[in-house]
């Protein structure tokens, strides 16, 4: 497919919401202020694990300016939420399992009064010893944090005979890897507002990643018909998975029932967001990999343990995806893989860009680098030897039926300047005590939800009074720019100007259910749904034009932004505005729908928790680093990102994802970690959580490989997550290339690198002959 056939698809179309964002005119949910507004606040637990003996709210209730103080007793419906299992109480009643647990809600005239009221609520706790180690949580000695035990989920995938393969191997590597508790650190903390409308509708405006599911979770807690709740979840000041689960929606809904129709607003401080918000699961990954001398990998054995903290959220799905992806995009004939998702009292972990694949990719791609070195093979050659292609069988044993771009990404990597000239780049140090190195890694990430979960897209297309079109897709724009891509697709297919397209997203009253914005799925799924709606719109327009001019529909042709009716006395132009008025006067609908089911694999691997997926995106990263041997500090200087995202619908948007993902990956690998001690957060805010700034931004180049996935909209797949995955191991491999140390415990902080350098020094024998 050549771009030149298209007016919008494949073009660098600037974001349609750009102007309102750069001028500050766009109103986020947390921006709204009203004369009669009241403030909501949440009382969080003082202990990571305790029994609640008694809650006394009487003093808070008596405070002037307080409108409501709510506890678990005030929940009309089910006191729990959670995307998969609703194991998290909305308001804790008898036990708290993490310091993020909410116990009471307050609504008051001002923020100050609300805060004062919180301090007047007395909770009588019986503190218990928190469980802070996931391995310990799995033993018999650990008390159960939930009735079902501490292992939330256990997934396994087995294929071939690993024992036999290990006994026949020429080389075996065995290592344990640890990964950090990364914070999403979206710039807009959780917040929004809710109001009980005069007609009895409850409106909740709160950034989220799936308005329809948020609405169901609210309805369940309030025992209210979901049809009486409207959730508006767009726009969003960043999410990355961190707003996939309920944040403050249910609190807003509960409070709104008690404020006499006055709007109630909650906006978490950064400090509260750190404590209450979900994080990336810290993993322990034990991996044993076997290969033959020629570089053929013959076996991989993995045991991964994910710390999901106090509640499951999407932890079960995270560990399942990790296990599905832990052998990389390779065909390893013998695998024995298992993963555990375990409850502890360490905050809460949940969805985060990459969804478990980051943690396991770091392990397999470090092993690939070690194998290449030990077998004296080129790291790209070694990978090329083991990658699967479309039609091949993957390590987990399924035949790949959709496009696979790994080989192309590796070939592009081989040819790129940074890789070809790596010997030169290595020598080019900035100080004598600094060392440079170049590392590479490749990975993949599933697109869509996998087996067992509904996965459909739906879109509406409406002809408006002024002759423009409104595209409605449930999927929110969490920053990635899917709204612009939706407009491009609609304009392309309707053959109209993109300025005639407006897009509405994330509003249960204005859009139909189109699933979540997760799993890199929204471009693919929403795009296909729009493509399905367009023929319905064209039919509607054509038929109306035919009626207007009394011709057969086949005598109506589409032009640019208008239609032509072919009549005996010549062509008659019909504008979309004319059609709207014609239909409006006849009280006929001007809105159509399009629906799309994501193709799925037929058979699930038993015990795998949803594997395999049908569609994957692929990516190879190359990085250049410089390690300061005096301080242990690492700078990433250059990044080359080579994605296979299928057909690129908007190169500017794709680069934006690749650049943002790379920098987030740098933060994850080098400094980000929410530190916890005995169940309490030692990391409290951005003063002690180090995020990459513009100063740390390397030169980032993006070279998408030319590929098209037949099933995708215009051949597209998805990109949102894979962009931050291989870079992790690419950086640690580059650190090894520079300084000869293997970092298996992330983040690779200066302290860890310095310690590793010292250890290396101590263990290197001094050669007296030199």
């Amino acid at each position, binding site marked *: 497919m050549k771009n030149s056939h298209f007016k919008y698809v494949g073009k*660098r179309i*600037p*974001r349609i*919401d*750009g*102007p*309102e*964002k*750069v*001028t*500050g*005119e*766009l*109103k*986020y949910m947390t*921006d*709204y*202020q009203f004369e009669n507004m009241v403030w909501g606040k949440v009382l969080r637990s003082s202990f990571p694990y305790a029994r609640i003996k008694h809650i006394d709210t009487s003093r808070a209730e008596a405070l002037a300016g307080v409108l409501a103080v709510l506890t678990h007793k005030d929940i009309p419906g089910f006191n729990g939420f959670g995307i998969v299992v609703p194991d998290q109480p909305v308001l804790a009643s008898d036990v708290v399992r993490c310091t993020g647990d909410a116990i009471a809600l307050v609504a008051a005239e001002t923020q100050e009064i609300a805060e004062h009221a919180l301090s007047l609520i007395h909770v009588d706790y019986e503190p218990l010893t928190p469980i802070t180690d996931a391995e310990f949580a799995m033993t018999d000695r650990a008390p159960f944090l939930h009735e079902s035990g501490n292992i939330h989920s256990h997934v396994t995938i087995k294929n071939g005979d690993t024992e036999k393969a290990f006994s026949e191997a020429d080389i075996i590597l065995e290592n344990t890897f640890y990964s950090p508790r990364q914070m*999403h*650190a*979206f*710039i*807009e*903390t959780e917040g929004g507002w809710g109001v009980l409308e005069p007609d009895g509708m409850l409106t909740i405006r709160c950034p989220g990643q799936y308005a329809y599911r948020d609405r169901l979770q609210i309805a369940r807690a309030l025992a209210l018909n979901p049809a009486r709740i409207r959730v508006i979840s767009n*726009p*969003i*000041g*960043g*999410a*990355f998975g961190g707003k996939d689960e309920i944040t403050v929606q249910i609190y807003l809904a509960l409070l709104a029932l008690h404020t006499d129709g006055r709007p109630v607003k909650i*906006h978490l*401080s*950064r400090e509260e967001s750190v404590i209450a918000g979900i994080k990336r699961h810290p993993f322990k990954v034990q991996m044993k990999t076997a290969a033959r001398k020629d570089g053929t990998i013959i076996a991989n054995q993995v045991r991964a343990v994910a710390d999901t903290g106090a509640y499951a959220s999407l932890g079960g799905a995270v560990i399942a995806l990790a296990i599905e992806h832990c052998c990389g995009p390779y065909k390893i004939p013998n695998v024995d893989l298992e993963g555990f998702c375990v409850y502890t009292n360490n905050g809460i972990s949940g969805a985060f860009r990459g969804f478990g694949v980051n943690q396991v990719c770091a392990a397999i791609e470090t092993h690939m680098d070690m194998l290449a070195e030990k077998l004296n093979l080129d790291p790209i050659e070694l990978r090329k030897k083991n990658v699967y292609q479309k039609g091949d069988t993957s390590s987990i044993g399924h035949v790949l039926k959709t496009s696979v771009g790994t080989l192309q990404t590796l070939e592009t990597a081989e040819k790129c300047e940074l890789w070809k000239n790596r010997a030169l780049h290595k020598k080019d140090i900035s100080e004598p005590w600094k060392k440079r190195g170049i590392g590479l890694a490749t990975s993949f990430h599933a697109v869509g939800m996998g087996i067992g979960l509904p996965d459909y897209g739906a879109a509406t297309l409406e002809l408006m009074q002024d002759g423009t079109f409104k595209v409605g897709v449930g999927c929110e724009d*969490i*920053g*990635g*720019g899917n709204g612009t891509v939706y407009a491009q697709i609609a304009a392309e297919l309707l053959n109209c100007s993109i300025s005639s397209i407006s897009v509405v997203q994330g509003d249960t009253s204005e859009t139909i259910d189109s699933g979540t914005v997760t799993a890199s799925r929204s471009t693919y799924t929403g795009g296909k749904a729009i493509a399905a709606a367009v023929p319905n719109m064209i039919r509607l327009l054509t038929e109306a034009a035919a009626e207007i001019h009394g011709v057969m529909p086949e005598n109506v042709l589409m032009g640019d932004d208008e239609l032509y009716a072919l009549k005996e006395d010549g062509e008659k132009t019909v504008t979309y505005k004319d059609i709207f008025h014609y239909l409006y006067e006849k009280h006929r609908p001007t809105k159509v729908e399009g629906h799309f089911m994501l193709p799925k694999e037929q058979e699930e691997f038993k015990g795998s928790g949803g594997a395999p997926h049908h569609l994957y995106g692929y990516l190879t990263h190359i990085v250049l680093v410089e390690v300061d041997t005096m301080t242990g500090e690492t700078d990433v200087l250059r990044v080359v990102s080579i994605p296979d995202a299928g057909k690129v619908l908007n190169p*500017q*948007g794709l*680069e*934006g994802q*690749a*650049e*943002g*993902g*790379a*920098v*987030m990956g740098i933060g994850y690998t080098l400094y980000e970690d929410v530190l916890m001690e005995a169940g309490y957060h030692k990391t409290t*805010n*951005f*003063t002690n959580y180090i*995020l990459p*700034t*513009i*100063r740390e*931004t390397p030169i*980032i180049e993006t070279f998408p490989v030319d590929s098209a996935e037949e099933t995708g909209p215009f051949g597209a797949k998805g990109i949102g997550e894979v962009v931050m995955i291989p870079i992790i191991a690419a950086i640690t491999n580059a650190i090894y290339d520079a300084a000869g140390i293997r970092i298996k415990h992330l983040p690779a902080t200066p302290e860890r690198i310095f310690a590793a350098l010292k250890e290396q020094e101590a263990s290197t024998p001094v050669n007296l002959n030199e």
Partner: protein
Amino acid sequence: MKTIDFCVNGKNVSVICSPAKTLLDVLREDAGLTGSKECCGKGECGSCTVLLNDVPVCSCLVLAGQVEGERVVTVEGIGTKQAMDPVQQAFVDEGATQCGYCTPGLIVASRAYLTSIGHVPGLDEIKRALGGNLCRCTGYTKILQAVQTAAARQLSSREL
């Protein structure tokens, strides 16, 4: 409570509030200017950046009492959708905004920086100037490009 008079985006305003209220809250809650965002409230992120007598400051660290009689410019005063500043136009053209929550602060900081120089800055110069503004979405690459593009356009329009 105290009456505080100051000038914001060229207009004189008068608000009644506690002198210890932050300028950011005054702008957002009392002046109805919600372009400036709160992200950390501690001077760490720059999303609340405004100009105080032409100097970029974190408005979450400035108290209302300190702006009595002073001049404040927020992102709304830099340009509007109908009449964008070259910096804003360049951010749109280069794709330098994603979720957009950090963007107003970056626009204000970039505008102040470009006003203070008369050349197309190198990457290291921009990195120094914008080191206090966090963005979690973009990876900053397109922000660097946007600032250079705006500088080049600004320069060529001055030369005309």
